[in-house]
């Protein structure tokens, strides 16, 4: 098993393997999203409290969930790269960050749209989820800004890895703090924990979550492949690929 993992960590091997993996992520993912969108918009019954507006959860919840998962992947890759000095792990972290930031932004935008009918405003500081997502977005910006500020790739990998790990420790603490802060205020939140979610609403949601995750996987693989190509650009295996015209 170690031998397999060791082989996987080799950039050319990963590059070839991921080329075949991407369709297996993208196709099922898109199908699930298509089903989820259709079912979410037309099949799921209207919500008693929130009317049609609740349907945005079909984008908001997957986006929020992935924004967190992307950070964990980023921190995991950073940790593995820092401790075991695996270059591919650093490439994964570098690829996950911008994706995570986009999903965070999507979660914020959909969260804001969702809250508007309820709050009457486009933003509600009292909503702990929204505020946590905003802080998460800043964490992503900080990570990417640090990477950008350092010219040497190895040094940038390692410095941003330290930041990602420190951030990972702090993310749950930030969540907890914002929840506590909000509990003092009892402002209107997006998701009321007590509400039961009926089956007809649940299945499209699960489909969207699964679909989004698969599509995220496909996008991540693509980004990591690009990172790997760039980082290894002076190596022979990259030249061979470019010269042979293969490799999209």
């Amino acid at each position: 098993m170690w031998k397999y993992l060791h082989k996987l960590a080799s950039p050319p091997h990963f590059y070839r393997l991921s080329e075949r993996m991407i369709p297996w992520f993208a196709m099922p993912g898109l199908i699930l999203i298509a089903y989820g969108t259709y079912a979410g918009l037309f099949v799921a019954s209207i919500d008693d409290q929130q009317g049609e507006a609740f349907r945005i959860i079909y984008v908001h919840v997957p986006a929020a969930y992935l924004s967190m998962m992307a950070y964990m992947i980023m921190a995991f890759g950073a940790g593995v790269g820092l401790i075991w000095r695996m270059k591919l792990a650093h490439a994964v972290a570098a690829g996950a960050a911008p994706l995570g930031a986009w999903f965070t932004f999507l979660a914020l935008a959909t969260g804001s749209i969702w809250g508007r009918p309820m709050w009457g405003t486009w933003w509600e500081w009292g909503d702990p989820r929204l505020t946590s997502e905003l802080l998460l977005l800043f964490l992503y910006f900080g990570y990417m800004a640090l990477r950008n500020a350092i010219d040497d790739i190895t040094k940038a990998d390692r410095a941003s890895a330290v930041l990602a790990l420190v951030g990972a420790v702090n993310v749950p603490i930030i969540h907890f703090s914002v929840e506590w802060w909000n509990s003092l205020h009892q402002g209107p939140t997006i998701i009321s924990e007590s509400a039961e979610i009926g089956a007809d609403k649940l299945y499209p949601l699960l489909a969207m979550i699964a679909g989004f995750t698969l599509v995220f996987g496909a996008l991540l693989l693509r980004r990591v492949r690009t990172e790997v190509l760039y980082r290894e650009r002076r190596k022979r295996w990259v030249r061979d690929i470019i010269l042979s015209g293969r490799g999209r």
Partner: protein
Amino acid sequence: MSAQLTADALTLFRGDRCLFKGLSFALNSGELLLLRGSNGSGKTSLLRAIAGLLELESGTVYWNEVAVRKEPQIFQNSLVWMSHQPGFKGDLTLIENLHYEASLRPQSNQELDEVLNRLGLNRLKRLPMRSLSAGQRRRVALARMLLADAELWIMDEPVSNLDSEGRVLAMELVGEHLAADGMVIMAAHQDVDIDATVQTIQLQ
């Protein structure tokens, strides 16, 4: 009491550039390892890698047959580092700086006053470091080498910025250190004339 520094197949990259590959050497007590090469050839990077300031791509440095990676503190305790920057606080006086350095090496046996006398720094000792000239600061760096009471001296172009008197003094100190069974690794532009075993590595 003899010590040994061995390097086994050291490889270092800076960005995409390979500075050296598979570099090995063995240095014993009383010997000087001289690194020669033009600017940018990797002399300083090799010194920094040995001192532990840069991470090697591959290869191991051994101190007395123990890999430095495994027991870094023992190795660091036996070495003293001299680079282009003197590494002193400009706002503190000479003596305050040396007191701080001494507090980090509590087991050193050297006498501060003796060393200051030897290097002609006595009359400067209450002056803030920033009011000393570059050559004077170099001499304080040499004082650090003596005070550390360490076996291995790693020096990056120690005689640049020194007048001829300073150069003679520096090489005298190196010679004495080697004669007392110490080891020196030095990066330099020109060859050194010294009464000891000298190994030379030429970097491209």
